[in-house]
């Protein structure tokens, strides 16, 4: 192992190795242990395995880490297969009822055949249906055997009134749940893209007429979801999705101009700005100079920018699993507050947070 890597932290080795897997050849076993642990913590172990495989490095690695990488790849590939099946089952029901659908996020990457799709740790598939048909879609899926999540009346109400999706559906005995959306951001949030424009630009697939957002809209959706609708806690994985999309779409004729134009039209410039600067800071994603200059028009006011940019870079850098209790708790908490602030106006937000804070969150039991 080179001297540079001996002192490097696991998160920085993780970033370097997904960008250039050849450096994996120079790691010693203690460095491997830290790297694999860090990759697991950030849900990118299977992605690291895919990168090592794609660059022909995997077979040259020491047996123990190679086994761990292959095992992670196997588990994630199974989830991608299940996602394909779940989306197929959902689309079959929707098609019968003549309800159009767009696959979003993980399921969309799978349908698009993106190589990193089979490295994601999916827990559900997301589909969007036209807003006027969302009740029909829910009814049809329930009639076909999916079950609604048991929620207390408050959470039911929260989903129905303030969210952009209905409560998650689950087919008994299957691993992945289904989230049905009618738009890409919460209807009460400060961002108001026009869903009709997403439908108009959507691409069709040969899989039961399931559609996909256009490449530009896919990026904007992922950026909006990450920067405006998540807690930004351990979301390096989501940054990888954006990185992979920009690598895949970036070579298409006119993609970058369309992306910026689309962000302007759909009032999603701010999330695009955050995505571009954070990707450049953390993953050195190749983004054309003109694009980096043009997204400046979407930047927030200077004081906000001065705080947000380094904070986002720090939060979206892989989490180091070693320190306990975990670092960055204060920043994560502020971002959690911010994500709710963005999602709901204050007169709705304060009672909501008060209620949430009174609740205990239940995790999995070790002896279950």
């Amino acid at each position: 192992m080179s001297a540079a890597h001996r002192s490097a932290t696991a998160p920085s080795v993780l970033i370097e190795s997904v960008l250039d897997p050849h450096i994996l050849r120079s790691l010693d076993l203690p460095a491997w242990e830290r790297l694999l642990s860090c990759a697991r913590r950030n849900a990118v172990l299977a992605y690291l395995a895919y990168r090592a495989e794609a660059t022909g490095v995997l077979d040259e690695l020491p047996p123990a880490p190679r086994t761990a990488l292959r095992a992670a790849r196997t588990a994630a590939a199974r989830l991608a297969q299940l996602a394909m099946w779940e989306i197929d089952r959902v689309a079959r029901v929707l098609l019968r009822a003549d309800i159009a659908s767009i696959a979003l996020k993980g399921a969309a990457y799978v349908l698009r055949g993106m190589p990193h799709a089979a490295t994601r740790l999916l827990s559900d598939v997301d589909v969007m249906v036209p807003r006027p048909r969302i009740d029909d879609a829910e009814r049809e899926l329930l009639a076909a055997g999916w079950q609604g999540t048991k929620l207390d009346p408050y959470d039911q109400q929260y989903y129905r009134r303030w969210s952009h999706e209905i409560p998650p559906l689950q087919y008994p005995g299957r691993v992945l749940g289904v989230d049905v959306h009618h738009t890409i951001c919460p209807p009460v949030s400060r961002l108001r893209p026009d869903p009709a424009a997403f439908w108009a630009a959507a691409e069709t697939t040969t899989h039961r007429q399931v559609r996909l957002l256009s490449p530009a809209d896919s990026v904007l959706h992922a950026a909006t979801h990450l920067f405006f609708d998540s807690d930004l806690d351990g979301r390096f994985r989501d940054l990888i999705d954006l990185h992979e999309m920009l690598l895949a779409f970036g070579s298409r004729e006119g993609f970058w101009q369309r992306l910026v134009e689309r962000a302007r039209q759909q009032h999603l410039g701010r999330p695009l700005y955050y995505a571009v600067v954070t990707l450049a800071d953390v993953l050195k994603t190749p983004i054309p100079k003109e694009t980096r200059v043009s997204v400046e028009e979407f930047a927030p006011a200077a004081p906000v920018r001065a705080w947000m940019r380094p904070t986002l870079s720090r939060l979206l850098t892989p989490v180091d699993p070693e320190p306990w209790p975990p670092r960055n708790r204060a920043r994560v908490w502020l971002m959690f507050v911010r994500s709710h602030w963005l999602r709901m106006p204050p007169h709705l937000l304060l009672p909501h947070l008060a209620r949430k804070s009174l609740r205990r969150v239940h995790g999995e039991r070790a002896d279950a």
Partner: protein
Amino acid sequence: MTVGELSSESVRTRLAREGLALRIPPITVRLRSPLGFLADQVRTLYHDYEFADSAAYADIDIRMLAGAGARRWTRRQVQFVVDGVTPFEPFPVEHALPMFEWGLNWVVSHRLHGHLLLHCAVAARNGRALLLPAWPGSGKSTLSAALACSGWRLLSDEYGVVALDDARLLPFVRPVALKNESIEVMRAFAPDAFIGPLFPKTRKGTVAHLRPPQDSVRRAGEAAVAGAIVFPDFQHGEPTSVKRVPASPAFLKLAGNAFNYEVVGEPAFRAVAALVRNCGAWVLRYGDLASARAALDDIMHQSSP
């Protein structure tokens, strides 16, 4: 060097600092914890296990840490931390050892996809493995503990680790978790066996761990060819009986209760097919350990090539 050859003080210090890298073939597990009593319990139960030096590679890194938050003042708790996350709710601190054992099982079943993981106890005799696949509560732990104390080599009380290339059984020897009545049953059956402290009032009732026989631990690197598949069915007070199970239902029962059959996919299908093709399958209904053991001896004898 084995864990038992270290002083109690030395095990405590290792756990509190760089961790103890336990060799539990086919994996190495690093355990770190500031809890001295946990170090002592680990030292007793993992007495005969080799450990690696602290710079060696560990496949799984587990920390058992004192709980945080307001509840730490009212009731001491322990957290299971793997790769910097806590997949479970904390346990009362005195249940640290059962939590480590259960948590390690959980991690293994989510990770070891290079092998087929059957939910089954495995013991071997004359190099041939007996598979005891069963759901919790059907007595496979007790049965495998009884075999381990009767001259059989213990491979596992929980995991049938099947190599995907040749369908041989890899040992994954661990302390055997005995629950409730089976603790006293084992004490009566094998008075010389070492059973660790009782952990009352866990979610599974009272739990205690049987230290695996030294010979089984020493030979944990030796795979065994599958010899017979027996589905145990404990029925209190029933006479012992055995019944042949045809290959196809045996296939479904074996595949249906594996941890990662679907994840591994086609190689798992081939491995299960090889198992049911190469060895016979039976259901063993039993009400007491001595006659069950005799019936298993018979089955192994009958099925020997």
